[in-house]
């Protein structure tokens, strides 16, 4: 937890968002859509994997949304959004060429220190449902440079086959081979699904990993964390080798409004990416 003050002069533009134009839209389902945006007022998005923007629709409000594209040197970025509140529902009605407003990027993200820890290790991505969205940025950073890692295992679980996000990307990931493997499961079989059926923890025994030389990254619905952590700890995975990306209600993004607090931690500042060893005792983790 941050215990030192870092007093700053006033920033007149702290709450002033910038324009972002919608370049591309595609639907995954009735509830989830993919968007590509272009920032009109600056040259780079400047984000790290795991960071988020506060996305505004004027007259409706502002909502924190994960950036799903990997870091890049240009002003484009991607997001995938489930309709859940006022902003996300309105966002789903917008068209290519429409303008939204963004502030950020915010949050710690997967910092260079964290991603450096991952080098030459076996990476275990454990994603549930739209947990794919916040992890996709990191995934699409490490997969193209896969030779830097011992192995990359991607474990993806969804309720039903039609709730699989980025199906074409999953097909690509499955084809790569070598040190990249994709294991999928669904809770309920529908249609012609021939793959695994069961909760995501049923995939963990199928992966051959040396816990002390593996880094796990978990994102999914709140219920998923407890069970995944239990499975990993039973395999003797060191707690400091586990990272989680936590969802909270970030309203201001700058550590003031208090909504995202997890005990004493402002998740918008010190998270949303946490090392499990550092937060395991936090009362408000799950």
């Amino acid at each position, binding site marked *: *937890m*941050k*215990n*030192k*003050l*870092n*007093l*700053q*002069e*006033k*920033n*007149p*533009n*702290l*709450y*002033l*968002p910038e*324009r972002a134009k919608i370049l591309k839209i595609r639907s995954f389902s009735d509830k989830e859509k993919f968007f590509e945006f272009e920032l009109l007022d600056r040259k780079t998005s400047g984000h790290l994997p795991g960071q988020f923007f506060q996305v*505004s629709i*004027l*007259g*409706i*409000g*502002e*909502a924190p949304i994960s950036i799903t594209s990997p870091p890049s040197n240009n002003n484009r970025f991607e997001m995938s959004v489930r309709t*859940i*509140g006022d902003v*996300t529902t309105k966002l789903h009605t917008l068209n290519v060429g429409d*303008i939204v*407003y963004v502030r950020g990027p915010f949050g710690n993200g997967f910092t260079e220190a964290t991603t450096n820890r991952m080098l030459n290790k076996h990476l275990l991505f454990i994603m549930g449902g739209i947990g794919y969205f916040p992890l996709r940025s990191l995934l699409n950073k490490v997969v193209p440079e896969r030779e830097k890692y011992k192995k990359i295992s991607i474990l993806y679980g969804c309720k039903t086959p039609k709730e699989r996000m980025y199906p074409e990307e999953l097909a690509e990931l499955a084809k790569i081979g070598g040190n990249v493997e994709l294991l999928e499961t669904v809770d309920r079989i529908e249609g012609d699904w021939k793959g695994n059926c069961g909760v995501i923890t049923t995939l963990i025994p199928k992966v051959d990993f040396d816990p002390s030389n593996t880094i796990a990254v978990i994102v999914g*619905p*709140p219920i998923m964390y407890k069970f995944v952590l239990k499975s990993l700890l039973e395999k003797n995975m060191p707690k400091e080798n586990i990272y989680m990306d936590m*969802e*909270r*209600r970030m*309203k*201001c993004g*700058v*550590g*003031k*409004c*208090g*909504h995202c*607090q*997890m*005990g*004493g931690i402002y998740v918008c*500042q010190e998270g949303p990416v946490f090392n499990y060893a550092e937060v395991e005792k936090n*009362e*408000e*983790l*799950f």
Partner: protein
Amino acid sequence: MSTKTSELVITKDNLFKGLDKTLIDYQVAALTKKSERSLFDYVTSSSEIKLEYQPTVLSPKKFFFPQEEVILEYTSDGKISAKIDAKPLVLFGIRPCDLNGFKVLYEAFADDHGDPNYLAKLEQSVVIGIDCKKICDKDSFCFKVGSQNALGGFDIMLYELDNDYAIEIASEKGRKFVDKYLTTSKARGDEIATFQAEKASCFGKEKPFKNLEKFPEIFEQSTYHPVWEQEGSRCLSCGSCIMVCPTCYCFDIKDEWQLNLKQGERIRNWDACMVRSFATIGSGENFRHGATARLHHRINRKFNYLMKKHGQAVCVGCGRCVRACLAEISPKTIAAAIDGEQG
């Protein structure tokens, strides 16, 4: 505490005359009365100002952090600008509890990212404190949390003497204000010490929580103390404690179109972590389970999470939440129970 020396004294008459002079250049807000209730409000003449402190329902934080405040303005054709509304303000007669609150709020709004709205208002203000010689009522407990003396948050502090006030100047802004508006005379130098001796004869009998300085660690280890359930089970989750608190600064943000649908505003307003919806996320999950957990969170902000950061108890013992709470929940009761455990 260290003995301060005063350079200047001012008569009550000259003080009021000086405040009347400032009305040309500043709005002046001070302790006044409406329908027999004490409150901090704008005044149009020094004759409306009450010098005898009686607890107010709302703290003076409202002048820097209003209950509702426009932070952005925009139009339907996409013009958007930050709205920062700050006017020259003299805040007169603020007591140590609330000054300690101002210190915390300044630090909170300046920490990591400088909040433009709060800091602009603060820059435009001159805060004049009046030190307390006696404990204001049975519900206040500033002396339990080390808050009976102001640790900061003021430009000028006044210490009441028999017929005069001794003046302590704490900032350059305060010095300029005194030079420009107040007719003062030279002090002997021992006035503040005299005041403090008199203050100590009342406050000196009261002792702070014995483990106050170690509260962050003690509260960290007291999550399962029975006092949380004992007090939290009575909580009505109304959020009144937060509305009246001088150091609660959480807020919500909402957007509103004007009726013509051509202009809109983004507004921030006070929000309350004691209300269930505060921590609910998009999917409907809430990781703060129930009123007891919410009370635990709020009180830990005061005596643990934020106390670590600000180096002072963030509950300033003003007693406003105690007076406002229909369920008679008091941070003092909770802190006493947890302090008692440590022997």
